[in-house]
C-alpha cells in the first residue's frame, strides 16, 4: 500500500474509529448500568476517554492499517451487539 494511503487510513481509524468506539462504549455502559439512570450517565462520562486514547495509539502501532481497522470494526461489532441486546432486554 502507498505510504500516504496507509497513513490516511490510520488517521481515520484514530479519529473516526476512535470516536465510534468511545461513543459505543459510553452508550453500552449507560444502557447496561444496573442502577439509576443519572448514575449511569455520570459514571459513564468518566472512562470513555481512555478508550479513545487506546484506539488512537492502536491505530498507529498496528502492523498495518487494515489490521488496525479490522480490530476496530470487530470491537465495534461486539459493542453494537451489546447495545442491541440491551434494547432487546429492556
Amino acid at each position, binding site marked *: 500500500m502507498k505510504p500516504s494511503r496507509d497513513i490516511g487510513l490510520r488517521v481515520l481509524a484514530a479519529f473516526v474509529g476512535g470516536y465510534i468506539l468511545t461513543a459505543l462504549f459510553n452508550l453500552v455502559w449507560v444502557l447496561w448500568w444496573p442502577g439509576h439512570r*443519572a448514575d449511569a450517565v455520570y459514571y459513564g462520562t468518566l472512562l470513555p476517554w481512555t478508550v479513545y486514547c487506546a484506539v*488512537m*495509539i492502536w491505530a498507529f*502501532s498496528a502492523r498495518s492499517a487494515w489490521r488496525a481497522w479490522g480490530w476496530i470494526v470487530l470491537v465495534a461489532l461486539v459493542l453494537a451487539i451489546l447495545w442491541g441486546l440491551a434494547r432487546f432486554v429492556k
Partner: protein
Amino acid sequence: MKKTFSLSMAWLHTWFGLYLGWLLFAVFLTGTMAVFEHSITHWMQPEASIDRSAPLPSFEKQLEVGQAYLEQHALREKGSLWRIIPAGERHPTLDVGWRDKGKNHEVALDPYSGQEIDIRETEGGEMLTHFHYTLLAGIPGTIIVGLAAVVMLVGLISGIVIHKRIFKDFFTFRKQSSSQRSWLDAHNVAGVMMLPFLLMITYTGLVMQPLVFLPLGIKAAYEDPRGLRADAVQSFDLPYVGEQAALLNISSLLPRARESLDVVEWVVIKNGGDASAVVEFYESINHKISAVANHAAFNGVNGELIGAQTEWRDSTYIFRAFVGTHVAVFGGWTVSWLYFIGGTVSCGLIATGLVLFTIKRRKRPENEFGAASGCVYRLIEALNVAAVMGSINAILIYFWANRILPADLAGRSDWEVRAFLFTWLASLAHALVRKPLAGWRDQLVFAVALCWLLPVYSWLSGQPNLLSFLQRGDGVALGVESTIVAFGVLLAVAVPKVSGAMRGVPARRKG
C-alpha cells in the same frame, strides 16, 4: 507502521504534536488566563476599580442594596431570574442581574455607595475562557478542542513511551549542550514535572463536556437531556401566579439559610415581585473540589423554607469533582496561582515541542515532504511563530484594545475581539515575510514592549494604572497588571537567546 512500538509512538508524537500543538498552545494559554478570568474582567473594567481601603459593607447590607436596586430596575416577569452577588475578596463589585427575554442583563454596583457604575463594554476575561473551549466557534469549536485534547493525552502517553529515561533524567537540564539538546531537556523536564497536572487538566477537560462529546449516552437514558440535571440538582421553584406581591427583606432570611449552608456566596430570586417569588441562597464552593453548590430556597413572600439541598448523588458529586478539578474555583489564591503556573509551564512544554521540530530539521533536514520540503519547513516555522507569539500578542493586544478604544464606542467589545483575532493574522503574515529567527525575535520584542508599556500608556492617557490600583488598595487589578509586566520579563529573557541563535552562536555559555 514503523518497525517498533516506540518508533511508531515517536512518529505519532512528532506529527500529531506539531499539527495540533499549534491549536493546543492557544487553548492552553487562554485556559491559563481563564484561571484569573474574573480578575482580568475586573482589570478590563477600570471604572469598577474603586477605593477599597475601607472594609467592605456586610453581606446583609449588600443584599439589601442589591434587592432595592432590583426591585426598582429589574424586569418582573415569568422566568425573570434576579441575582445578587455581593462583593468579596476576589469579586470587587456588588453585581446584580436579571434575565430579559432570555438575555442576561448585568449591572455592577459600588458596594460602598450602592451607586451603579458605568462600565465600558467588554467581554473581559470571559472571552478568553470562551475561546479556551469553543475557539469562539460554538459547538464545532468545542469538538475541535476536544479532538485536540485527545491528541494531547496521546501526546503525553507517547511522550512517556519515547522518553524512556523519565527517572534517570528527572532533574536533567543541560543548558550548556547543543541547542537541540537543551530544548529537548526543557521539553522533557516540563513534561515530566507537570505530568500529573497535564494528565489531570486534559482528562477532566474532556470529561466535563458530555453533552457535546457524548450525546448518545445521555439520549439513551433521557429523552430530554435536561432530565439529567433535574435528577442531580433539586429544584425548589414555585409555579408562577401572575399576582404582584411584595418581596420580603432577603437579608432577614440569612440566619435561617446559614442553618443549612456554610458560607453563603450569592442569591438568586426567581419570579421576583410575584406571589410565587422564591429566594435561593447558594453556598460558596471554595472549600471543596467538587463543583456543587449547596443551596437553600425560601418562599419570597412569607419566608417559609421550601427546601435545601446539601446532599448529592455520589455519581453527581464525583462527576462534578472532575469539573471542579478542571475549573479550580476551590482553594483560593493558592490553588489559582498553582494552576496558573502549571498552565504556563504547560504552554512552555508545547512551545518547546514546536520549536524542537524545526530545530531538528534546521540541522538535518529529513525531506519528509519530498521536493517541497524546504517550503513546507519554512511554512511550519512561520506557523510556529504565529501559534506561539501570535497567541501571546493577540491576548496582549486584546488588553491594549481595552485601554485604547474609547469607552463609549458602539460595539466596543466586538472591536476588542476583532483586535484579538486580527493580531493572529498579522502575526502569521509577519512570520511568513521575515526569516524564521527574525520572526521570533521581532514578535518577542513586540510582546515585551506591549507588556511593559501598558502601565505607561494607561498612566499617560489618564486611566487607572499600577499606581492608582496601589493607592486604592485594588489588589485584584494590581495583581493583573503587575503579572503582565512580570510576564514581559519572562519573555525578555528569551530575546538575547534568539538574537544569539541568529548570530549563529549557541545561547550564552556560563560556567
